[in-house]
């Protein structure tokens, strides 16, 4: 009898977790309290560590697609139909020399290849061989002004409800030696589902920071006035801006 009571009370205590916490989870003030952990984690982990690099034999030839599989921007379909010959990466905002880059121009810049693990926020991971231009090199070419604090990535995608996909990194993260503007995955140009023609790779943070289908990089003093104001599409949905943990 006592044992049955014990089991019943344990199961009901566990089953109360959801119903009790849901109203708290919907409370904006309570969510702000929970979110205080993010700044602490960012402060302690910092941005200087290097993600592990792997061997060729570790590479997943069938690399799992993260996020959405096809971009919904109409311009994108036209660019893809023309094999991205008309693609121009716009880099502007708080920079001394705003300019655009064609894919050929990006290919002429020094290339980095990294075999790194992509850690999805959902919990899965996959290893890919990524090649492209270091974000730091690209930024050096446009000379960021001293008031530039964030690199904001605008993507050729929206969620169907009119919200454009975007991401952001602070300048330390953007100049990290492994922050890469990838144009190739596993020795071939990026395909559509993996972010063609240019995507970001930030192997020291969760996969949603590695934005796909990038059209424009805007350097900005802040992100509060952009979309939901939290520095990214997923961040506006409640995910952490600092995604190292």
């Amino acid at each position, binding site marked *: 009898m006592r044992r049955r009571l014990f089991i019943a009370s344990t199961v009901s205590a566990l*089953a109360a977790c*959801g119903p009790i916490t*849901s109203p708290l989870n919907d409370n904006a003030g309570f969510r702000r309290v929970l979110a205080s952990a993010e700044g602490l984690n960012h402060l302690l982990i910092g941005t200087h560590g290097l993600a*592990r690099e792997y061997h060729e034999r570790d590479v997943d030839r069938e690399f799992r697609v993260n996020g959405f599989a096809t971009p919904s921007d109409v311009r994108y379909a036209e660019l893809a139909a023309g094999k991205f010959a008309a693609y121009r990466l716009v880099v502007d905002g708080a920079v001394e020399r705003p300019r655009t880059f064609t894919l050929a121009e990006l290919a002429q810049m020094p290339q980095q290849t990294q075999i790194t693990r992509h850690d999805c926020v959902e919990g899965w991971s996959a290893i890919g061989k990524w090649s492209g231009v270091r974000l730091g090199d690209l930024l050096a070419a446009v000379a960021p002004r001293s008031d530039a604090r964030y690199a904001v990535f605008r993507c050729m995608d929206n969620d169907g409800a009119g919200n454009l996909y975007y991401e952001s990194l602070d300048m330390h993260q953007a100049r990290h030696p492994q922050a890469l503007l990838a144009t190739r995955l596993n020795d071939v140009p990026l395909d559509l589902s993996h972010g063609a023609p240019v995507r970001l790779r930030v192997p020291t*943070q969760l996969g949603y920071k590695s934005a796909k289908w990038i059209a424009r990089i805007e350097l900005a003093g802040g992100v509060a006035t952009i979309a939901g104001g939290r520095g990214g599409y997923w961040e506006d949905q409640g995910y952490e801006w600092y995604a190292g943990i």
Partner: protein
Amino acid sequence: MKDARQAIYRYALLTRASHWLWVLAFFVLVGSGLQIFNASPNLDASDKSDPSRRVLAIGSPAEGVGTATLFGRTFETTGWLGWTDDGMGSRGAHAFPSPVTIPGYQDLAGGRRWHLFFAWIAGLCWFAWLVSTAIKGNLREMILRPDDLPKLWPMQAYYLKLRATPPPHGTYNPLQKAAYTTVLFVIAPLVVVTGLALSPGIDAIANPLTAVFGGRQFARLWHFAGMLLLLGFFAIHTFQVLTQGVINQMRSMITGWYQPE
């Protein structure tokens, strides 16, 4: 001589406060951890995801059917795992049922916020308790020592009623010392460290840590297994409290005062 029946002050305020904070933090961490698990309900004994090294997979192979596959053996678990209560008034393809997850509906972003906040609460609480207990010199009462080992079986024999009296011991008996030492200094720290090890930022600043556990997915597996061990401790601990004078035990952990029989 002191009256044996006089109440004794057994638990300091910080011990009691950290005990109940841990109870709260533990339930939040389990519930929010299951929410996070649900986003990718597989555990692989590997660095990157690898179906050929899958230890546990919870899923829904067809509408209305839930299954759990452990070491390649599949069990139908409809209603309990795989196809469960979605917290929105119906059932769906959710690994763990929403009533046991935090929050009680599918919300990975929210679950992560709860998890990462209460991980700090549990960790800081552990550290404060450890420092204060060590300073007061009470730590050695509960740490298992080599001379406790021969007393483990006599104590178990006493619990099984194979022996009339427990072996002589201090404040805590040898089995209690074994349990507390294992939970507080082995399993709980391992759960914290494996949780850190599966994060890309931590992997970048402390490369060997993730590798020691066999990689990211393996760290996720250890993290989950450690949670199950802590749940096992919780079940045994609660059972002991309920069967060994629950009112006296609860009073001592709330007010600090214990009434010897």
